[in-house]
């Protein structure tokens, strides 16, 4: 593995590359999507350190290999946070290395607050990356509003290292909220659970988390703000939700721990050899989707984002995968095979195929950024 400690080192590695490269940070999400067809690995893990932090301007820049725990600790000292609540995948993949900022942006995996505050890519203000020609390219910047030129930040976010090697990243950061509380609602069935989440999300109380545990039929709604607001809103929301089922209140650290578990999909309780899928659908489509997967292969599920995010665990077989793909397509949603043994990941469409007209554009965009096809070949789709 080549892990330079400067951007110039990354440039040199790209210019010297004669064979495709696996691009990663700490490799914490190496098990995500398809196995990369590359003989060598180029890592940004040694590009470390926060390069700019202006709390009153709500911006933080860091080199791509800086770890999330390091960034979160610095933000916490000034009462701030990464609002999209990026997932910590160590529980899912069983790794020990924490995620880097670069990997977090490249995979765009947001946590429960995504429903209210937006995704990792929504908070991405600027990037520096090395393209396949070894050029350092900047996009965006360090200001909160910027529409100058094509937004390559959005293109690179969630592109899983296939378009460029991120070297430095600037994020919008927000004040951490003073207080938090969670209302737990016991519901009779899934559809009622989704209705409870919708009731919260269509209320004026600024719900920042809306998850559903299908096993215990518990809907969870989170409020975060100044303590005066949380007290007031949890009282009002509780009165609304009591029409739908019994409500209990969880506050402070207990509430925070609960949402960390939901963020990392722990309540899914996947068996070690289960495959895990992450599906994005319209919330109202979730109950039918969950029911069909339970019927198809006894799927275990966890719902977040008001029902719009469905975590699924089940046997790591092509049949189960095809059932997930079919059910997600029926819901007009988007699937990601999040964890599976390598043979399965290599054999199936881990994310949806694109329409031919878009696939043609995608191939040309890939060639515009990485003409020799150096970066993470096969990571997202076979043959690309």
């Amino acid at each position, binding site marked *: 593995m080549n892990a330079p400690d400067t951007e110039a080192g990354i440039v040199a590695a790209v210019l010297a590359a004669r064979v495709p490269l696996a691009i990663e940070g700490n490799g914490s999400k190496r098990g995500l999507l398809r196995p990369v067809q590359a003989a060598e690995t180029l890592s940004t893990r040694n590009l470390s350190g926060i390069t700019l932090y202006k709390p*009153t301007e709500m911006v933080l820049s860091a080199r791509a290999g800086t770890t999330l725990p390091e960034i979160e600790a610095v933000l916490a000292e000034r009462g701030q946070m990464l609002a999209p609540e990026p997932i910590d995948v160590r529980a899912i993949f069983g790794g020990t290395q924490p995620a880097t900022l670069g990997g977090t942006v490249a995979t765009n995996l947001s946590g429960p607050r995504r429903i209210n505050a937006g995704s990792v890519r929504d908070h991405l203000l600027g990037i520096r990356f090395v393209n396949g020609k070894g*050029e350092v390219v900047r996009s965006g910047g360090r200001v909160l509003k*910027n529409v100058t*030129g094509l937004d390559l930040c*959005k293109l690179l976010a969630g592109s899983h290292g296939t378009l460029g090697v991120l070297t430095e990243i600037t994020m919008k950061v927000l004040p951490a909220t003073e207080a938090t509380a969670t209302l737990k609602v016991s519901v009779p069935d899934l559809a009622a659970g989704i209705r409870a989440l919708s009731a919260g999300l*269509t209320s004026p109380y600024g719900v920042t988390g809306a998850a559903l545990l299908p096993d215990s039929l518990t809907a969870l709604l989170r409020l975060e703000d100044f303590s*005066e607001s949380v007290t007031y809103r949890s009282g009002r929301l509780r009165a609304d939700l009591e029409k739908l089922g019994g409500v209990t209140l969880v506050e402070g650290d207990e509430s925070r721990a609960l949402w960390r578990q939901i963020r990392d999909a722990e309540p899914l309780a996947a068996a070690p050899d289960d495959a895990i899928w992450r599906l994005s659908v319209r*919330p109202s489509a979730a109950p039918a989707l969950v029911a069909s997967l339970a019927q198809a292969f006894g799927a275990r599920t966890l719902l977040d984002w008001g029902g719009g995010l469905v975590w699924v665990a089940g046997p790591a077989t092509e049949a189960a995968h095809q059932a997930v793909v079919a059910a997600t397509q029926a819901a007009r949603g988007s699937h990601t095979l999040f964890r599976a043994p390598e043979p399965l990941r290599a054999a199936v469409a881990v994310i949806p195929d694109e329409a031919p007209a*878009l696939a043609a554009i995608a191939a040309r*965009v890939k060639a515009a950024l990485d003409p020799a096809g150096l970066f993470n070949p096969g990571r997202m789709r076979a043959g690309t």
Partner: protein
Amino acid sequence: MIALPPPKPGILARRDEIIAALRSFIPGEGVIGDATRLKPYETDGLSAYRQPPLAVVLPTTTEQVAAVMRYCHQQGIRVVPRGAGTSLSGGALPLEDAVVIGLMRMNRILEIDFDDRLAVVEAGVTNLGITKAVEHEGFFYAPDPSSQLACMIGGNVNMNSGGAHCLKYGVTANNLLGLKLVTPEGEIVEVGGDHLDTAGYDWLGLMTGSEGMLGIVTEVTVRILRGPEGARAMLAAFKGTEIAGAAVDAIIGSGIIPVALEFMDKPCIHACEAFAHAGYPLDAEAMLIIEVEGSVAEQDFLLNRIKEICARFDPISLKVATSVEESMAIWKGRKGAFGAVGRISPDYLCMDGTIPTGELPFVLKRIGEMSTQYGLQVANVFHAGDGNLHPLIMFDANNPDSFRRAEDFGADILKLCVEVGGCLTGEHGVGVEKRDLMHVQFQPHELAQQRAIKTAFDPAWLLNPHKVFPLEALPQ
């Protein structure tokens, strides 16, 4: 002055044939070819520049758009998309040899779903039209550009429009779920969907703010949000711009993100007060309008905290609205700022750079010095929480020298924005207006990288080829 590329050889001579072909795709009044009726399409919100197009088509369906695009692609004819024509950067400025595709007749709301918190609308629905369609249930569409009464969602997507309330709710890009669009080659495709975060490349994010260079957006799926219980504004006036800037830092530093945080300098306060009689303090050097949301008790709590913070900065006046009416009065001057400046000066250029908020006092001081140097008045109004400046440079359009000086002054302000770590445009887009300044912010290979992505979508550079990038690299 901004140059337009010369017409492609042979296109102008085929005008009649092209219009006849367009009529075969779009019936009746949907194709405009005569000079008088083309006149309204020759310019947009950047009215200093005018250029009538070859023809205008006003499709009513995505299929019609696709038919026109396929034809233009086959024939090598340039295309310029247009919504309401409110762009302040010349985003809808036509070309002599281009077909303008006007989306204003595609103005249907196709679906509203409150439980799933989304609406599907055609590109020609106005920004405010979306909110009007959902407000009876207490919902709204969050981005609120000043032109929201007229501007259309398709244009908002293409310019990634912001507004006064995006400090809390984000800009257009943060409030979209999906798009239906027609590629430069005439294919209908959908990106994103009716759910969050589609796996794969983020075409939705790349299209947003792409200034009509990558495709024609015909349908948009937006997120709609439940509104807060209420909102209330306060006004805080200070003896210096530096002091007001420090107050802004202190508010953000305290952990409060107001839903809006607007800043006006002395010339702007005076212009707005003369126009709106909003009761603004005329002796102040700088004034903030701060709005918070929530129940009345929550508003009181937040406004009291902000008032306490502002009180530490020796304010000239602090006025907290006690009713919706008083809030509206505080906003009245700000919302009329452009009109107010228009009363002082018949013509003005509205600039749109963004700076790190800590650089505000320095930037305002430099703008003041430039104002003296160029002999032109300037009024500054901006979104203080996010550093998005709107200097309004006043000039006389009947005096070519005055216009030239205004353009140079504006360019100097934008260069200054980049110099202090900011950017050329926060929400208005590059358009034609700032096209020739792109090299100030980007290095040649960075512009080449962006152009290569444009080429990936539009190999023949037929779609809006004269926007965003300096012309010298325009493929012939």
